[in-house]
């Protein structure tokens, strides 16, 4: 299991060090424990943080000790072990640890970590015992790790805390009350595309998330339904009269989905129904992936022409491909330019375009664009003559945007809430649903 956990700043100075097992130091010849640890700590600094090269692997083995690391802005989190641990678990834990820290004190920065080091040690003590991850749901942790002491607790409260931390519904505490029962459902999708210069789709997929903010009293039992092809087809067979063509068009094929731990997986596996008791506040209910019948909101048509050795002519057309009544926002097209660019002239019909030398790209921004429209940019790029034999690698043109629909075609059909003990019913809950489609990695080769 995990032998120790360290947090470094960008210089490689240790901000947090928590050692769970002796074995990660150098074996017990040397009595001074502090000195031993330094070796593992320094090994990581020298070999990874200070390494000249780009990181070649997130797992490094130095002197028979394995280091797992993730980086958040300037901060390195490293887990150290000498055993054959579950590597996926270690990384999941490191991410979780980042989530927990963010939930407690916001952005992970050197400043925040130093300001909260006592809290971090307290958290580490709780969520990682002898290198084994324990309950790390912030909802539960916040009930008893507060940095304010837990003096005032009654016996009842204490046992409530412990039963929640270890209980079957570790993500929700009992006795939550709201005057107004309300829930917000966001379907957030990122659409990914890789297109050849000729307009052939090389790969495309949507990775979506259903994020829920729930403000519900008691222990509500929820059931979530969407236009999943498998469910619709099943129902279609039952109803028989439903015309197959229509239902087929409205349903979508989900390649795979994963759920928050509150969802009863065995029920999903057998009946494909999504039922759960939600955590309080914001959380991610599910993630899914689709690859079939994706609506690609934009099409990028590039044209690059080399005029002699010192000039490039670039023309890029973008076409929006959705209902004219809808508006896409925050559109940004990034056209890479060669390293030896000396000057750029751009003309665009809509929005603003600028050459950013530091990023080696022309950035073209359009605030809003309706569906079924087209816009164009053309640029002349002057190049310095070089004797570099290697041709310019021509990175792909990438795009960012936000559209008010789900490119996968996913629709929420219902979200039912049942709470048997308290007297409010499904109708009393105010529900909000919103769809946002964003660009993931949306690239067209040129």
């Amino acid at each position, binding site marked *: 299991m995990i032998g120790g956990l360290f947090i470094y700043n960008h210089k490689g100075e240790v901000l947090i060090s928590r*050692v769970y097992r002796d074995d990660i130091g150098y074996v017990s010849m040397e*009595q001074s424990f*502090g000195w031993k640890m330094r070796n593992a700590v320094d090994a990581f600094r020298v070999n990874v943080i200070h390494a000249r090269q780009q990181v070649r692997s997130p797992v490094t083995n130095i002197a028979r000790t394995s280091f797992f690391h993730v980086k958040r802005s300037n901060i390195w989190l490293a887990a150290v072990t*000498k055993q054959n641990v*579950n590597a996926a678990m270690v990384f999941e834990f490191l991410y979780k640890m980042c989530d927990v820290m963010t939930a407690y004190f916001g952005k992970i920065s050197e400043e925040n970590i130093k300001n909260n*080091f006592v809290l971090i040690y307290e958290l580490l003590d709780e969520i990682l015992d002898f290198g084994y991850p324990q309950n790390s749901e912030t909802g539960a942790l916040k009930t008893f790790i507060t940095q304010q002491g837990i003096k005032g607790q009654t016996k009842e409260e204490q046992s409530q805390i412990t039963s929640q931390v270890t209980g*079957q519904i570790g993500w929700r505490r009992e006795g939550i009350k709201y005057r107004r029962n309300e829930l917000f459902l966001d379907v957030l999708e990122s659409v990914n595309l890789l297109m050849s210069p000729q307009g052939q789709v090389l790969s495309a997929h949507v990775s979506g998330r259903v994020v829920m903010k729930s403000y519900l009293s008691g222990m509500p039992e929820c059931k979530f339904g969407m236009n999943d092809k498998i469910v619709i087809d099943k129902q279609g067979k039952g109803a028989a009269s439903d015309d197959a063509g229509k239902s087929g068009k409205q349903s979508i094929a989900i390649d*795979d989905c994963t759920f*928050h731990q509150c969802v009863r997986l065995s029920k999903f596996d057998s009946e494909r129904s999504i039922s759960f008791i939600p955590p309080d506040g914001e959380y991610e209910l599910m993630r899914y992936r689709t690859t079939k019948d994706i609506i690609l909101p934009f099409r990028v048509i590039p044209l690059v022409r080399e005029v002699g050795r010192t000039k490039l002519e670039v023309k890029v057309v973008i076409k929006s491909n959705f209902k004219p009544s809808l508006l896409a926002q925050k559109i940004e097209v990034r056209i890479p330019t060669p390293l030896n660019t000396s000057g750029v002239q751009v003309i665009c019909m809509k929005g603003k375009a600028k050459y950013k030398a530091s990023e080696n790209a022309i950035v073209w921004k359009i605030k809003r664009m309706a569906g079924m429209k087209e816009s164009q940019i053309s640029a002349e790029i002057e190049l310095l003559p070089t004797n570099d034999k290697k041709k310019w690698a021509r990175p792909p043109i*990438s795009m960012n945007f936000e559209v008010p629909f789900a490119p996968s075609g996913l629709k929420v059909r219902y979200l039912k809430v049942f709470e048997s003990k308290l007297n409010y019913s499904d109708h009393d809950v105010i529900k909000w649903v919103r769809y946002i489609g964003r660009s993931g990695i949306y690239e067209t080769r040129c």
Partner: protein
Amino acid sequence: MTDSKYFTTTKKGEIFELKAELNSDKKEKKKEAVKKVIASMTVGKDVSALFPDVVNCMQTDNLELKKLVYLYLMNYAKSQPDMAIMAVNTFVKDCEDPNPLIRALAVRTMGCIRVDKITEYLCEPLRKCLKDEDPYVRKTAAVCVAKLHDINAQLVEDQGFLDTLKDLISDSNPMVVANAVAALSEIAESHPNSNLLDLNPQTINKLLTALNECTEWGQIFILDCLANYTPRDDRESQSICERVTPRLSHANSAVVLSAVKVLMKFMEMLPKDLDYYGTLLKKLAPPLVTLLSAEPELQYVALRNINLIVQRRPEILKHEMKVFFVKYNDPIYVKLEKLDIMIRLASQANIAQVLAELKEYATEVDVDFVRKAVRAIGRCAIKVEQSAERCVSTLLDLIQTKVNYVVQEAIVVIKDIFRKYPNKYESVIATLCENLDSLDEPEARAAMIWIVGEYAERIDNADELLESFLEGFHDESTQVQLQLLTAIVKLFLKKPTETQELVQQVLSLATQDSDNPDLRDRGYIYWRLLSTDPVAAKEVVLAEKPLISEETDLIEPTLLEELICHIGTLASVYHKPPSAFVEGSRGVQHKRLPGSAGSGESVESPDTGSAAGVSEAPPAVIPSQGDLLEDLLNLDLTPPTTTGPPPPASSGMQMGAMDLLGGGLDSLLGGDLGGGPAMGTGFGAPPAAMPASFNVPVSGGLDDLFDLGGGVGMPMGVFNPPKTVWLPAMKAKGLEISGTFVRRAGVIQMEMTLTNKAMSVMTDFAIQFNRNSFGLAPAGPLQVLTPLSPNQSIEAALPLSTVGPVMKMEPLNNLQVAVKNNIDVFYFSCQYPISMLFAEDGKMERQVFLATWKDIPNDNESQFQIKDCHLNSDAASNKLQGSNIFTIAKRTVEGQDMLYQSMKLTNGIWVLAELRVQAGNPNYTISLKCRAPEVSQCVFQNYEMVLKN
């Protein structure tokens, strides 16, 4: 809240200031001071001097302060064990606290204080906490048992904590179950044979129930534990699979991967014609693909695992090629792994797409990635015949870019394509030759030289090209030198008239001016061959080469099976068995996939054909660099080996199989070698510098040279040291004990002769051992049934086990024994030969031996001389085998025999040895390599003893 100030104080005299503050009466000030201490500790300052002052702050109601003090204690208790005892009382008190959070905190922290003296105080509180009414305390106590076991295993067993822990598997709270499983799994790892977890259908059922209810982490512990279970039959296997599959939809990737591990393993037992088998295969693909949308670090772990999964069951992901396409912004480690999987999935159906992608990648920025992409194109050509032509033209396009490393990489792979499809693409040679000057890497130079030599008859200026390389012959790497030598000999055999001078030049460069024995050997062989029988030379040097295999760098099947059992773990990331990177006994246990259901022979359906092919034909897929001795001795005999054949097939080694001189002298010079007479003068006799050994019958020598550790004879009798007096009668009130140790069929026995030299009858014998280095302990009571009358002797044999408590002894093989009889207790110590501990399964596989030998740092190597030993190497090998020292390979170099040997100690430590025996020299040299170098001295003594008796 600006705690960051604690990180900045660095002034002198700080410790004294802190001391004063810690002893302050004001609570706030105390707390501040402790915070400062912790901050100093974090940045690596030694604040152990403050130990008593900090511990004084422990008695407090303030939980925050208490936790800080605990944190300090955990870090420094080890350096101040006596002072740490001061803290014990508070812990014991806290374990009784009404607040369950405090009880748990106390038991958790106490387990982290790794001081032997504290452990005994820990037992009582721990026992209570394991039965606490609050599940939070119980789940913490469960982990604490693992902590205690790590400090003092014996104590945990003696106190019966293991049984309590086993009971917790039936606990009503799922998190307690999960932690108990985690603790037991860890403890079981250090006792490979103890069957601690005792997995049976009932416990499995309990685990599966808990699986649905516990936290994501608990699910991982349980799934990892389940993976160690072997179901009784295919029905049980299926029912477990059915209950595990829902986990594939979990948001936590580790849960998904652990579930995949269980399914991959249990699937082996399902009959292939079962519907459920097909359903399961289909269910596995989507979650694996989903893993690729996780964060990059997890993607990397997932990709390394997918790499294993597609080797074992290519059918799962065969339609998912596109998801492995590289994204421009992927981190380099993700890109390289994706590329590997793309090649594995390449087939006729998708090759066009793959090639288009690869060509795109070959223009990217990262050098390693570009190289790998170019190499991948070559591998596609070899794998999918229909695409070969397109691959070659793509490669030619890339050569036109003139980017140095792209050109070199392309030439290396084109060489392999030539090997695979002879006489098909030679038209491109001209293009290749244009780039001769830009090649600066040995591998590319060697590949180019190979091409020139192989196709010398089609290249008009082949002699000029090769001659140009010859100028800087001594500056080239061995790889290039060897290749050049062979190429020129080939050229000569093809165009003897014009190139005689060239070949003489290279032969003399290789044999007279070179220090490299391999180069010299190869030079002499060619020389002798050419001078005695050019026809045979032609047959040998220009022999048809065996086809190269399609799939390269596949993982060896047994290793692959083991790695599949470790999906999700570090082993699967490194693609190495745990024993290669984990020290000590942990992880030494090799895991295997269960056999398939029903009939013993595994009938694979046609679509799993490639997987079956892999497991049935191991020799074809062993990566060529794996040849043990070659790598070990850095011979570097082969041409570049990405897709090359195993070394024995390469030109230099081929000759081993042939009788080099037999009949050669009688054969007529072939008419096609028009330059016959001229050659007679050119190759009259080898130069005088040739070593004498070459003039004695050469075939014998060569046989030896090429007998790479083939047959090693049967073992001779086992050597057991004679009995010696351990306990003289004078010291033991008349009891004399002499004895020895023997190992028979895997059982170690202590054979003793007890003699009564006193006047009275002796009865009630009992024996006990002190803790010792290898955990030797009596496996049963000492059987001396009859009373021992005066002047009587009795033989007693005591079987020993190696699972006793461990303590390092000096010397290592020292054993302290206490013998009791009705008169008194007597102590003596004796030394057992370390070979008693050499296990019967100590023969390492060549591959593993090679990897391990390289892996062990050179600092761990020790060398010894064994003097006056008159055995030859075979006899020595036989003799040693009797003591479970196994010879893995043998090699003879210039009259010196090298034996490569391995042995495995009962505690899982491997010792590797190289024994050098020079004919006629009674002094042997032995080099030992071991992860625990302390044992080397003992092992050496053992060698000496065995060989001399």
